[in-house]
C-alpha cells in the first residue's frame, strides 16, 4: 500500500498526487512511468512520472479524471493509500548534452514534460517551453515551469490566456524566428504530437515524443503497447515510452487508443445507474 502524502486540484478534473514510494523515487528518471491499481477490482494503468522528490521519497503523478480508474483515484485523499504502485518503468529520457531545447506540452501532457524541463534547466540547457490547453483554467504547472525555462509561451483554444490557437502556431513562429534547437520534446494528446512532428520534420529538427498506449502489465509481458516506429514494431513499456516522433505511426496509435471506447461507455453508464 502506498500513502498519498499530498493532493492538489490543479484544474477542473486534473489532480496532482504525491505518493510515498521510496524505492521508486530512488530510481526515477524523467520520462519514466509507473503502473498503479486503485482497488481489488481495479485496472492497472500507466501514468508518466510528473516529478520525484528524493528528500521526501515521493513520486508525483498528475492525471485527468476521464475513466473508471482515474475517477477512483481522484476520489482518494491525502492520507489514503493506493493499493498498487510499481516502477519506475520504461527508459528515461536522453537529455544529457542538449544545449537548446524546445519543449512542447499539451493538456495533461504538460505534467510528464515538467521533469524533463526541470532536468534540462538544472543541467544548464537553454529551454523554451510552449504549453497549450483548452482554456486558462486548464493550464497547469506554469509557475513551476517558469523556474527552469528561458521563455514560456502559453496557448489556449479560446484565447482566455496567452495566444489564442494551438501550440503549433508558436512552435512554427519560434523556429521561423531563427531559433536553432538541438531537439524538440513534445508530450500531449496524440494529434498534438503528430502536428508538432509535421512541423519539425520540415525543419529537420530531431523530435522526441512520449507515447502512452494501453498497457496491462507495463513490464514487457502483454505486448498490448505495440507502437510502429519507422515501420518496425516496438513495445512502449520496455523500448519506450519515448520515440523518434518523425518515425512514429500516429494514425495507428490514435486508432489503438480507441480500442475500448465502447467498454468505457458501458462502464460510464453502469456508474450512473
Amino acid at each position: 500500500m502506498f500513502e498519498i502524502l499530498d493532493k492538489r486540484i490543479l484544474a477542473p478534473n486534473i489532480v496532482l498526487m504525491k505518493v510515498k514510494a521510496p524505492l521508486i523515487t530512488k530510481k526515477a528518471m524523467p520520462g519514466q512511468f509507473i503502473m498503479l491499481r486503485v482497488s481489488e477490482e481495479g485496472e492497472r494503468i500507466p501514468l508518466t512520472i510528473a516529478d520525484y522528490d528524493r528528500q521526501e521519497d515521493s513520486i508525483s503523478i498528475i492525471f485527468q479524471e476521464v475513466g473508471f480508474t482515474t475517477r477512483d483515484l481522484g476520489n482518494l485523499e491525502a492520507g489514503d493509500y493506493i493499493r498498487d504502485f510499481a516502477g519506475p518503468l520504461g527508459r528515461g529520457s536522453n537529455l544529457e548534452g542538449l544545449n537548446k531545447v524546445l519543449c512542447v506540452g499539451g493538456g495533461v501532457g504538460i505534467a510528464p514534460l515538467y521533469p524533463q524541463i526541470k532536468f534540462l534547466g538544472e543541467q544548464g540547457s537553454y529551454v523554451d517551453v510552449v504549453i497549450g490547453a483548452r482554456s486558462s483554467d486548464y493550464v497547469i504547472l506554469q509557475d513551476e515551469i517558469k523556474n527552469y525555462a528561458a521563455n514560456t509561451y502559453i496557448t489556449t483554444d479560446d484565447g482566455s490566456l496567452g495566444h489564442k490557437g494551438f501550440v503549433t502556431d508558436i512552435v512554427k513562429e519560434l523556429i521561423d524566428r531563427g531559433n536553432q534547437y538541438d531537439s524538440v520534446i513534445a508530450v500531449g494528446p496524440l494529434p498534438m504530437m503528430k502536428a508538432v512532428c509535421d512541423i519539425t520534420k520540415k525543419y529537420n529538427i530531431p523530435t522526441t515524443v512520449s507515447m502512452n498506449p494501453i498497457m496491462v502489465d507495463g513490464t514487457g509481458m502483454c505486448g498490448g503497447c505495440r507502437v510502429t516506429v519507422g515501420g518496425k514494431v516496438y513495445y512502449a513499456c520496455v523500448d519506450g515510452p519515448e520515440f523518434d516522433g518523425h518515425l512514429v505511426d500516429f494514425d495507428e496509435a490514435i486508432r489503438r487508443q480507441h480500442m475500448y471506447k465502447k467498454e468505457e461507455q458501458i462502464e460510464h453508464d453502469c456508474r450512473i445507474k
Partner: protein
Amino acid sequence: MSLILDRVPVREQDPQIRKHNFNEVSFGYNLVEAIQEAKRCIQCKKPRCIDGCPVNIDIPKFIAHVSEGDIDKANEAIKETNNLPAICGRVCPQEEQCEARCILGIKGEPVAIGRLERFAADYTMDKTIQESIQIEKNGITIAVVGSGPSGLAAAADLAKLGYEVHIFEAFHEPGGVLIYGIPEFRLPKKLVKKEIEGLKKLGVKIYTNIIIGKTITIDELLEKGYKAVFIGSGAGLPKFMNIPGENLNGVYSANEYLTRINLMKAYDFPNSHTPIKKGKRVAVVGGGNVAMDAARSALRLGAEEVRIVYRRSEEEMPARLEEVHHAKEEGIIFDVLTNPVEIIGQDGWVKSLKCVRMELGEPDSSGRRTPIAIPNSDFTIDVDIVIMAIGTSPNPLIISTTEGLKTHSWGGIIVDEETGATSKDRVYAGGDAVTGAATVILAMGAGKKAAKAIHERLLYEAKEKEKYASKM
C-alpha cells in the same frame, strides 16, 4: 493378481455446459475412486515412473498410501520432493513423464498418477495449511525473483533448509503464470493462493510490486546482503508473426488476452474494471497449451465460433493431448496445416484472416516436419478477434540491467544445467527465463536444483570460513 487395464474414469463437467463457464473441467477423483485407481499400481521393484518425474516424486510410495486410504501419508510422501502437488497434479504433462513410463501402459492404460497426485493434494489441503511448520532459521537471506513455478519451488526448498527467503514479484499478485496465464478452468486460482499461503507458513516473505531490474537491480540485492539470488522471472515479450495487420484493433497476444481474463478478471467486466474485446468469431494462431487456453477462454467469453489455426498437422501440436481433446469436445474448430499470411482490417478493426494451406516437408532441427506453403492456396476466414499464441522471447528488464549475466543470442540466461548457476557469482536462474517457454514442472525442477546448489555453495563457504577461523 491380474492387471486391471483400464483406469478409473474421472468425472468431468459436460462440454456443452462447461464451455459457458470458467469452473474447473475435471472434478477429480473422490476417495473411493482414488483408492480403486491406486490399487491398479503393481508397485514395481524398479519403478520407472520416478525417473520420468522432473522432481522425482516417490510415486509408488504415495500411491501405496492412497490405496490404503491413508491420504495424509500419501500427501507427505509427495511433499518430500514436491511442494505444489495440487498444481502439478493438474498441469503437468504426465502422459509424457511419469505415466509414459508406467509398465501398465504397455498393455493397457498407465496408472493415473496425475489424478492421484491431485486427489491427495486436494483431500489434505485444508489440513496442511493450518499447520505451521517450525524450522530452525540459519540467518542467511536469499532473494528469489519472480513468484511463478520456479521461484516458488526454489523458495520452498530454501525455506525448509532454514534460509530466510524473500520473493520479489513485479505484479500485484504472486503466482506468475499460475495466476496470469493458466485459466481458472484448468487451475483454480483458489488453489494457487492456498499453495502460496502454505509457502508463507514456511516463513517465506513475498514482496509484490517490485520489478527487479527496474525498482531494484540484481547487483543491489547482492549489495544489500542477500547471499544468493535466484532468477525465475519467466517468459517475456510475446512473439508476433510479422505479417501485415498485426496492429489492427482486435489482435491480441495470448499473454495479453489471458492476463486480462485471469489476472485482471476481465470476464467479470464491468464489475472488474479491466475490459476485453469479446469477439464473435475468434482465431487463435498456434498449437501449444497456451493456444488451447486462449481458444477455450474465448469460447467461455461467449464467442460463437473459435478456431485454432496451426501451420503443421495435429500430430506435431505441442499441446497436451488432454487439452486438444477437451478443446475439441467443447467445439473448437481445428484448422491445421494452415498458416496466416495477413490480417485484413476494416476501419482499423480485424475483419478476416488470410491464410495459406500447408504441407509437410522434411524434418527440421527440432525433428518436426517443416511446413511448406502450397502455392495459390490462399483463402480467408471471417474473424473479429485474432490471438497470437506462438511463444515469447525472454524479458529484457533483468538481462539489460545486470552486469556480467551472460545470455544466449535469443535472450535466454545461460546456466550450468546441473546447478542453475549463471555466469555471475551467487546468481542462479531457472524456468522460462532460461529455457524459453516450457512447462510448469520443468520450471519447478530447475528451481529445486538451484535451491540445492545454493545450499551446497553456502555450506561450503561456511566450512571454509570455519577452517580459516580455526587456523587463526
